[in-house]
């Protein structure tokens, strides 16, 4: 059965809750009767071994997949009745970067598609360590550089809930530091983050909660 390690932090109002979530994939029960609550300003880490169902859980929380059982509420309303999709920034395991387009062109498309803020793209890409690489096709960038392009959304979004699947993949130390700083700013403004990662978070985010999924046969 499911084992949850919950370190209760003071909750400034629950914004996102999931009750009795059950997920079955290819006739295997990944998790059942899972309850989850997220408050504003909280960072929730989903942990577990490979294959335990972390990505499936994230996709259910992002509203991509319907759970086999259970209910999700955003600010007290069912997901589809609320403005959840506008308040969500979801960056999954795949980067979402189109390799034939340049970083600037990718950003232009995301700006329109996800209603991102207008900003100086050059400055932003420089902050992410991509100065001088803005207008070459992304297929010529390394995996880590492409990941940085995809994470640029986080600086431009006005979404309050971030759901991120392994955001630190392929990033080097400097990029990880920049990203952690951005997480901190987002949490300070009252936003919330749900993520999976194999990086240790407790140093930078002592208040982070951990939800551990157990691998079920």
């Amino acid at each position, binding site marked *: 059965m499911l084992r949850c390690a919950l370190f209760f932090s003071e909750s400034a109002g629950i914004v996102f809750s999931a009750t009795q979530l059950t997920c079955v994939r290819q006739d295997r029960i990944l998790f059942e009767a899972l309850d989850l609550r997220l408050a504003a300003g909280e960072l929730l880490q989903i942990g577990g071994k490979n294959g335990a169902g972390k990505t499936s859980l994230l*996709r259910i929380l*992002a*509203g*991509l*997949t*319907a759970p086999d059982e259970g209910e999700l509420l955003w600010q007290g309303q069912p997901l589809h009745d609320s403005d959840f*999709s*506008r308040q*969500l920034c*979801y*960056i*999954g*395991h*795949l*980067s*979402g*970067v*189109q*390799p*034939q*387009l340049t970083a600037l*062109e990718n950003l*232009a*498309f995301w*700006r*329109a*598609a*996800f*209603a991102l803020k207008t900003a100086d793209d050059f400055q932003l890409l420089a902050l992410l360590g991509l100065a001088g690489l803005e207008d070459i*096709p992304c297929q010529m960038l390394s995996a880590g550089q492409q990941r940085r392009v995809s994470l640029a959304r986080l600086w431009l979004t006005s979404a309050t809930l971030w759901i991120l699947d392994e955001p630190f993949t392929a990033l080097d130390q400097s990029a990880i530091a920049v990203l952690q700083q951005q997480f901190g700013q987002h949490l300070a403004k009252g936003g919330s983050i749900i993520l999976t990662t194999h990086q240790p978070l407790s140093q930078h985010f002592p208040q982070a909660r951990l939800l551990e999924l157990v691998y079920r046969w």
Partner: protein
Amino acid sequence: MVIFRQAFLREWRLLARQKADWLNPMMFFILVLTLFPLGVGAKPNLLVEIAPGIIWIAALLSVLLATERLFKDDYRQGTLEQLVAAQQPLLPYVLAKMLSSWCSTALPLLLMSPLIALLLGLSMPSWQAVVLTLLLGTPLLNMLAVLGAALTLSADKGGILLALLILPLYIPLLIFASAAVENASMGLSYSAQLAVLAAMLCLALALVPLAVLKALKINVG
């Protein structure tokens, strides 16, 4: 509207950078057209008789081939799942994909129609009918192909399956489009057939985008 423009611009850029995506289906179309006279004999009266059917079958095959890759890249890179999670941009994105794939597959066909008329020995009225039916019919054909691409997006064996699914749905279009060209070659009026094509197009415009959205959500979710 902004989303539609940006998505269309994106598709246009991608087509400009991957010319094979639209050049190859064009060459495929001409090659298939050439196969028919080689296979059934090049007698002029025979060709004139089967020309309408050949054109529309070749058009179907090349559009099917071209549209198969439509959503696959975005699916593999994760763009599609981000759009589905955000929900709002999905419909403009699908419409932009439909328009850009029509531009990349059907516009070349229209521009090549004089060449087709030459190869198959079509008369002037026949050629005019070919152009008109292509104008009305290729959007419908394209929408069906996009629907097929959306349905088979995450399937293990995509290619042939897409053709298997779409071919039965394509039969009414084939019947009326080739009948229109046939009537034109005999000097008869074909406005009735065009009207039916237009009606089918309107029905498809209303229903197919919804079906595509649903299919995309199921495949991504």
